[in-house]
């Protein structure tokens, strides 16, 4: 971490999944209403601190979701969107599915955190379908989440297993939503996406120049005020 002040490289090494989850948790403003998508985003809940006073929403119909249930806490009527048994916190509320998605679509959620196959330079998201001819499509709440939350954070590895950047000029996988992603947290950098293109907030284990060599869209360092 002993780097020159002008550098946006804040770590000597790429970040692991838990480090990234810790960073996302830290970046969520106190008092926020948040939906954490299935998979890697769920890890974020492990690092939310009680003093942040974050309320978690689960799209099957609950605000005030608590940690995963264990032992005697397991109740088949109390599950999250991933169909995992969870717990309720004081102040929790239940509502039907149309109300739950009205909470999203109506712009009442501050942040949702999602996984992704690809994010475009303008914040288009592809995360529900590979488009393979033999794949059975399943969308669930992905499009609603992408469209509804005030901020959409994506967590993913920057590169595919084959080494291709998942930040792309234009998504080649079927879209989930247009221009919806505001931040992308990856193992190698945090990107801010929007109509002005892709800005890099910080890098992990590489310089901006090294990062640019991996990503096929123009990158600029985000102004200090956005870091």
């Amino acid at each position, binding site marked *: 971490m002993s780097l020159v002040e002008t550098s946006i490289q804040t770590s000597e090494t790429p970040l692991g999944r838990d480090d990234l989850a810790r960073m996302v948790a830290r970046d969520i403003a106190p008092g926020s209403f948040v939906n954490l998508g299935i998979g890697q985003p769920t890890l974020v809940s492990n690092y939310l601190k009680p003093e942040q006073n974050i309320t978690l929403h*689960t*799209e*099957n*119909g*609950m605000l005030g979701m608590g940690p995963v249930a264990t032992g005697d806490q397991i*109740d*088949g*009527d*109390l*599950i*999250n969107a991933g*169909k995992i048994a969870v717990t*309720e916190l004081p102040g929790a509320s*239940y*509502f*039907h*599915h*149309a109300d*739950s*998605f*009205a909470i*999203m*679509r109506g712009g009442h959620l501050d942040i949702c955190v999602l996984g992704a196959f690809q994010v475009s330079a303008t914040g288009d998201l592809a995360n529900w*379908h590979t488009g393979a001819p*033999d*794949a*059975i*499509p*399943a*969308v*669930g*709440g*992905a*499009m*609603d989440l992408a*469209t*509804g939350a005030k901020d959409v954070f994506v967590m993913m590895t920057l590169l595919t297993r084959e080494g291709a950047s998942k930040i792309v000029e234009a998504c080649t996988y*079927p*879209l*989930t*939503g*247009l221009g919806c992603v505001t931040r992308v947290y990856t193992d190698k950098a945090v990107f801010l996406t929007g109509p002005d293109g892709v800005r890099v907030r910080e890098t992990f284990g590489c310089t901006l120049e090294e990062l640019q060599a991996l990503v096929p869209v123009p990158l600029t360092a985000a102004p200090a005020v956005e870091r």
Partner: protein
Amino acid sequence: MLNFVDTVGEAVAAVKDGSTVMIGGFGNAGQPFELIDALLESGATDLTVVNNNAGQGDQGLALLIKEGRVRKMICSFPRQSDSWHFDAKYKAGQIELELVPQGNLAERIRAAGAGIGGFFTPTGYGTMLAEGKETRIIDGRGQVFETPIHADVALIKALKADGVGNLIYRKTARNFGPIMAAAAKHTVVQVSEIVPTGSLDPENIVTPGIYVNSIVRIDSSGAAAAGTAEQVA
């Protein structure tokens, strides 16, 4: 007209060949397993089924699909690790799929119950699930026209009913119950308990009895429990 019935067979008799049937539940929470079993037993076929998923494992909706009773699924998330019966029928071209984003599914069901002819929503705009649908720019956002989903029969699960059919649910098992109850011409509810009219706090009723047609009590062993009419008298 509200009926308390003693058997699940009577409860699902309103489902005919060719019916559109809404089935409540998200995962196993709120899924009316006993009513689905009765529907399987009834032999009704050529069904259009509305559910969030397309059956899991070897129970409930998955068996209806396996037995070829379902002509079309309207759902948001058919593919799961244990949705093998749907997967097989879909790959064999033996079942039609209308894939709907989950919030659009919920709102289309709600719209049907509320007498809405359709609505514009930003969800799905610019994606393949909006192909062929009318779109508009409203308040600067692209929006897609979606139409209501009506049903002949809804099969749902609630925790308690009173003598006039008012319902309360339990935790996240509520999910699609209230909106499906309103969207179907005939709503069948399985409950764990039937309580005397007046014993549920009117401030806490989730589904008013006006939406409910048939109620059957399922005891904790999963059997339809007789004697319900006396309990509510």
